[in-house]
């Protein structure tokens, strides 16, 4: 198709210029290609031998898609993967462009595409992936996506138009996600956590689904893992947590790793370990294992890949700075914040905190969400908190109202100054927890690179 070839070459030209200029080319080339050919997404993925897997959801999509990319690599496949986390359609097309020849033929044989959940309906309208994975749906940047029910409806509508050749991999423990299978013609594999010890019985204040997505009657929970994730059923209609094709019978959490026990195809119980803390990483691993199973990769291969998994940008990755360890946590919504904080508190840490809040488009312009995040659990454990960012003072007030003594909260303007203060205040060998929204984390990563502590993230 001449139009695709033109789109590919103009996109690649943009990429070449950006690289020459020393800039990361994570989205702009895709934007150029899409302007020339809106169907570039379908044409660029059509000749992938093993097809394409789209990984979407509010939280965990970056980690899950990276796990899946490692798994297909361990199986001997060559994935094309938008691993920098540039997950709007332009970023996906940019990654496909980087992987293709000047005529548009891919060098890889499988697509692992992380897709922003608000972009998912548009992406699914333009291509029919082999697998669609949805990790969870939480309230996120409401100024951009508005309401979670409306977003779920749009995703469900797009899924209903997919062919029966697409397999859905859905989180059984999330009623909003489980409902997405409603109009789907093809197969569905559900994953979930069956460990009765995982989670509590009390509904959390940030729950987005207190009512049944089908009949609006109140949902009942036998077990709540996080927000509206758990062992749920409708009190009125027949809608209930679906049967899990792959389930964690037991989850063991430690400071550095998460182990899940699952039933293998042979019927034996196998242990799978990921070197990342946090119950939510058990969910990410389950989603990746389920998708791997759908494309025909066996558990031993997948488990081997996960055992050596390295976290993505800001997903509990660590950076060494002057004998101190910085642990970087990207947060963008209350559920993600609570999950990340939960992972820290499970391990009994008393963190020194560097928290950075920005309110640009990619962060969410409305900072209200910090009041839904569970700073109250964190407050008694904070040894000292430095706050920075475009909305640092909102964050300082949040910490104050959560019960952190004002003497333990310090506002520092400037990314570098904030890092210098936080690193300097920690003793040698200590850990500094860095919690930041997306553009704030980018700025902090840049400052760390300038200080000689970390690479720039698109070199990842």
């Amino acid at each position: 198709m001449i139009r695709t070839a033109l789109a590919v070459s103009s996109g690649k030209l943009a990429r070449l210029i950006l690289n020459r200029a020393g800039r990361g080319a994570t989205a702009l080339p895709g934007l150029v290609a899409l302007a020339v050919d809106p169907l570039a997404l379908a044409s660029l993925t059509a000749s992938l031998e093993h097809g394409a897997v789209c990984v979407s959801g509010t939280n965990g999509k970056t980690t899950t898609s990276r796990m899946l990319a490692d798994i297909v690599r361990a199986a001997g496949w060559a994935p094309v993967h938008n691993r920098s986390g540039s997950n709007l359609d332009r970023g996906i097309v940019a990654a496909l462009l980087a992987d293709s020849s000047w005529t548009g033929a891919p060098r890889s044989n499988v697509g692992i595409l992380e897709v922003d959940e608000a972009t998912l309906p548009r992406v699914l309208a333009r291509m029919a992936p082999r697998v669609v994975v949805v990790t969870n749906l939480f309230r996120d940047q409401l100024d951009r996506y508005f309401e979670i029910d409306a977003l779920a409806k749009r995703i469900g509508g797009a899924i209903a138009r997919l062919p029966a050749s697409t397999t859905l991999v859905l989180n059984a423990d999330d009623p909003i996600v489980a409902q997405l299978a409603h109009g789907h013609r093809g197969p569905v594999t559900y994953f979930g956590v069956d460990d009765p010890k995982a989670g509590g019985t009390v509904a959390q204040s940030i729950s987005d689904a207190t009512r049944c997505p089908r009949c609006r009657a109140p949902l009942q929970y036998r077990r709540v893992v996080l927000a509206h994730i758990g062992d749920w059923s409708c009190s009125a209609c027949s809608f209930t947590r679906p049967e899990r094709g792959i389930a964690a019978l037991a989850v063991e959490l430690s400071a550095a790793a998460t182990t899940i026990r699952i039933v293998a195809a042979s019927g034996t119980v196998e242990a799978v370990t990921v070197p990342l803390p946090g119950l939510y990483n058990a969910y990410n691993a389950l989603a990746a294992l389920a998708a791997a199973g759908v494309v025909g990769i066996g558990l031993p291969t997948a488990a081997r890949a996960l055992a050596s998994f390295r976290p993505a940008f800001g997903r509990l990755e660590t950076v060494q700075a002057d004998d101190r360890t910085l642990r970087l946590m990207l947060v963008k919504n209350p559920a993600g914040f609570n999950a990340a904080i939960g992972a820290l508190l499970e391990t009994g840490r008393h963190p020194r905190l560097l928290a950075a809040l920005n309110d640009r488009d990619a962060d969410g312009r409305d900072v209200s969400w910090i009041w839904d995040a569970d700073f109250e659990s964190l407050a008694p454990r904070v040894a000292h908190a430095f706050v920075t960012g475009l909305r640092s003072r909102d964050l300082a007030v949040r910490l104050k109202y959560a019960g952190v003594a004002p003497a333990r909260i310090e506002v520092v303007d400037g990314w570098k100054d904030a890092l210098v203060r936080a690193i300097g205040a920690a003793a040698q060998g200590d850990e500094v927890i860095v919690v930041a929204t997306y553009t704030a984390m980018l700025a902090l990563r840049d400052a760390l690179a300038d200080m000689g502590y970390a690479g720039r993230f698109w070199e990842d």
Partner: protein
Amino acid sequence: MRFWPRAATPYPQCIMEAMALRIVHLFPDLMSIYGDRGNVLALQQRSRWRGIDVEVRSHTAGAALDPDWADLYFFGGGQDQGQDVVGEDLQGPNGARLREGIASGAAALSICGGYQLLGHEYVPDGAPPIPGAGVLDVRTTVGSRRFVGNLLVKSDGGALVGFENHSGKTYLGPRARPLGRVLVGNGNNGEDRTEGAVQGRVIGCYLHGSLLPKNPWLADRLIGWALERRHGPVTLAPLDDTAEHAAQAQAMEVARART
């Protein structure tokens, strides 16, 4: 309950120690997105820091509201899908109980969806109007455009800054007066430069943020009104609001520069 009638002691600080504040959070399960919970946290903490006992109870649809109990009602914003259930609850006996509580002197703060549902009605596009609790003389119709952005308002007690996210357009009747005048943003309807409504001790507005933590003068005004219901007029002890004022100043700067 420890309670001193105001006349019993000439020392206001003694009254402070004995005071208690009762808050009802209306429909926290359905009407609590956009961080509106921060308003309840602000009311709680600012009372506790002054030695005032605080108790917060939740009211969920279907439970019976006790009109005698609350000094202060908080009603936040929700998703459209939650509002039908809430609207139904308020059309039943709980609507009458809420009106009775407010007539007895209770204060109320409502935000966004809560604000709309405290008015007379919400008129959706091409559907019959949804009646509200009618404690505010306001009417809301659905607009064609969604107002999303920072919102800066000048009010009688000072500036108010927050974030609006609504497609409803609210118009005030003669018994309500605007909470303030819009300096940046859209406010009630994007037309008359008004934002919010005040009627007696009931306030409604479109300011998320959360509103009260970084606009502490309004938090204190509500605490004062609420305490008056059972304790008579009070003078609140001042607090160190350096952090709150810094947050307000930063948010005002953002609203002016980037909206």
